């Protein structure tokens, strides 16, 4: 009888026989080695005069109009507001920020690099479907700097509130952690037996992780940045911050990761503002969009969908064979409709996102005088983050993100504009001494109150540890499936990973592929 060989043993045998090249080839065939990344693409059957009404000009609606249009469908996109893009929202000179009760017009200088991505701001390198569209639509991309260790870390509880460089903080933290690990290696009998060779590599890894001295003690490191010198004279090491002081701030639990979720540190952005993605789609489908058209009624029939909408003070009607709807679920519940009860229950199950962002125009790029080019400073206060722009390096002015509250409360949203601005000035002053005098022309965006959206990304009720409950997943499946085969909800809200453009696109692709499959299988 032949002894079964595990996949890994098999690879080892191959490597022994044929060298590394053999492993790479065979690995790809077995699905262990990475294959080239593939974006989701569609190959839709010809529309044959079929029509679709698309509700909402967010990225999923625009992509649906684009794809169906390519297949020869007759598409109409109804957008309630004065612009497309939804939460892809770039604020620049003259932009109307239509927040309920806090309407603003942006007063930034009228220059290409003076913009603020108030919604979508980062594209992970693994969001292939979005990246594929950017390529196809000619949307120029550039690298977004998310993680920059020269940025600041500030916590009132640490060192009397004195900001320290991220690189100092994390280098010291690694040093002390490594010191403890080495001690543990020497003092404990490990459950896991290491060979001498393995132990040597492990110790070496820990020493290099923490820049330990030869006696395995951490005494600071030049990797935390030079105090002075370093080029024409010997670099002088910065003073060590005591381990106890580092542990005064909860940032210890966060800053050693350079990931952004499951991706990073490489992220991208559209050159000139994320709304260039919207513009890319609009170059293809702009003539199909009807603006300031607010949906009033959705009636799903056996042979089509009737939509009523208010525009120019009149109620208008449109009928289409199919309807794709990316309007937020919590607004759909306020329309006249004939959806089934379980669908309405699912629509009501999804909660509104509460995220909030604010930005200032900086009169000078004061961060560059501190060696900071892009990246994020972390503050343990309610404004939480300051983002420095990649756009316009070494120009006179720039736009910085002054606060990013990702939700879980509406601390800033509830404030007046004046209170919000003062809060961000006071918070930012802890990091940049002259902040109050260096910034001007504030804009704030409380997504919970943005007209025609009334929420940031959908929040599905779930536990992050336990994932989705069965009930939540049932509601999700209910909303993903079409009503009567005619009405599809789409958008990042109909995904298990809301808030990302990739999710919105994949949701739209799922709906179109589902309809396409049903149409191909339908008796002629």
């Amino acid at each position, binding site marked *: 009888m032949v002894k079964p060989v595990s996949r890994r043993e098999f690879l080892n045998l191959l490597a022994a026989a044929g060298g590394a090249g053999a492993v790479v080839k065979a690995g790809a065939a077995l699905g262990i080695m990475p294959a080239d990344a593939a974006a989701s693409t569609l190959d839709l059957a010809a529309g044959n005069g079929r029509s679709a009404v698309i509700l909402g000009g967010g990225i999923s609606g625009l992509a649906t109009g684009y794809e169906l249009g390519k297949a020869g469908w007759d598409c109409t996109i109804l957008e309630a507001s*004065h612009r497309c893009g939804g939460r892809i929202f770039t604020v620049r000179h003259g932009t109307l920020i239509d927040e309920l*009760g806090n309407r603003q017009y942006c007063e930034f200088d009228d220059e290409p690099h003076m913009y603020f991505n108030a919604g979508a701001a980062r594209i992970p390198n693994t969001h292939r479907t979005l990246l594929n569209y950017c390529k196809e639509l000619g949307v120029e991309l550039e690298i977004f700097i998310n993680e920059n260790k020269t940025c600041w870390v500030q916590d009132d509880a640490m060192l009397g509130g004195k900001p320290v460089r991220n690189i100092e903080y994390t280098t010291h933290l690694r040093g002390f952690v490594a010191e403890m690990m080495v001690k543990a290696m020497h003092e404990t009998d490990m459950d896991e037996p290491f060979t001498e060779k393995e132990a040597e590599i492990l110790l070496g890894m820990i020493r290099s992780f923490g820049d330990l001295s030869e006696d395995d003690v951490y005494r600071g490191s030049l990797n935390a940045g030079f105090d002075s010198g370093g080029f024409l004279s010997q670099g002088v090491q910065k003073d060590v911050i005591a381990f106890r002081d580092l542990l005064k701030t909860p940032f210890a639990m966060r800053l050693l990761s350079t990931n952004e979720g499951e991706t990073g540190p490489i992220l991208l952005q559209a050159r000139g503002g994320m709304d260039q993605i919207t513009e890319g789609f609009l170059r293809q489908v702009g003539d199909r969009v009807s603006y300031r058209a607010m949906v009033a009624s959705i009636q799903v029939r056996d042979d089509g969908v009737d939509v009523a909408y208010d525009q120019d003070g009149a109620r208008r009607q449109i009928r289409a064979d199919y309807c794709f709807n990316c309007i937020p679920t919590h607004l759909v519940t306020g329309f006249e409709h004939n959806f089934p009860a379980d669908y309405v229950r699912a629509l*009501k199950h999804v909660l509104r996102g509460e995220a909030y962002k604010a930005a200032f125009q900086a009169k000078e790029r004061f961060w560059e005088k501190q060696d900071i080019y892009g990246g994020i400073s972390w503050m343990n206060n309610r404004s939480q983050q300051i983002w420095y722009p990649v756009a316009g390096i070494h120009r006179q002015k720039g736009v910085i993100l002054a606060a990013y509250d990702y939700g879980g409360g509406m601390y800033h949203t509830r404030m007046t504009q004046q209170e919000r601005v003062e809060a961000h000035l006071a918070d930012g002053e802890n990091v940049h001494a002259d902040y109050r005098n260096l910034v001007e022309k504030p804009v704030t965006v409380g997504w*919970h109150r943005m007209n025609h959206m*009334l929420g940031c990304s959908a929040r599905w009720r779930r536990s992050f540890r336990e994932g989705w409950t069965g009930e939540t997943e049932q509601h999700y499946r209910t909303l993903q499936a079409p009503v009567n085969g005619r009405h599809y909800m789409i958008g990042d809200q109909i995904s298990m990973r809301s808030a990302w453009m990739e999710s919105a696109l994949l949701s739209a692709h799922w709906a179109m592929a589902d309809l396409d499959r049903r149409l191909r299988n339908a008796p002629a």
Partner: protein
Amino acid sequence: MIRLALICLLCIPSLASAAEREPFDDRYCTTCHGTDGRGNEGVQAPRLAGMEPWYLKRQLENYRDGIRGAHPDDIEGLAMQPMAAMLTDESIQDIIEWVGGWNYVPAEHTISGDLDAGRALYQPCATCHGADAEGNEALGAPALAGQNDWYMVTQLRNFLAGYRGVHPRDVYGAQMRVMTTGLSGENDINNVVAYINSLSD
């Protein structure tokens, strides 16, 4: 000084750039309150269609003047307050006329409870709101029948918790606050709202 200058910039758009500004729609009501003001549970915004003009006027004025929607825990009221803060007497009249043109559609029922218990709890309410919850202008009490039941639950909770009806100028709210002390907890609130639902069946 700088802050003052910033605030002025935000408040008073300069005339020179006003011409090129993106125009905004000033009829925001249906964004939250749904098609023809039918109410939208998704954003907890109540039905306006069919609401008495005098009651709508009083509430808009209360919101505008900070008498309602000022308590930090009145989440829905806090969203409404800045909207009303922009209103003039004329625009309030304009809204009332607009709302008056909407079709009245009784709200769907989403809450059930013990109708007998609810009937007993409702008796003091009937003095002002009427035996059929039809409302009474002379007493300043709005109709309850046909209103969104989830909204009535929220408001009863708000009165009980002191989020509404505590401002010294909120005379009617203060009365309501006294009346809600007869309700002890979620069950009572559900039962009385379920009974009000039954009056519009």
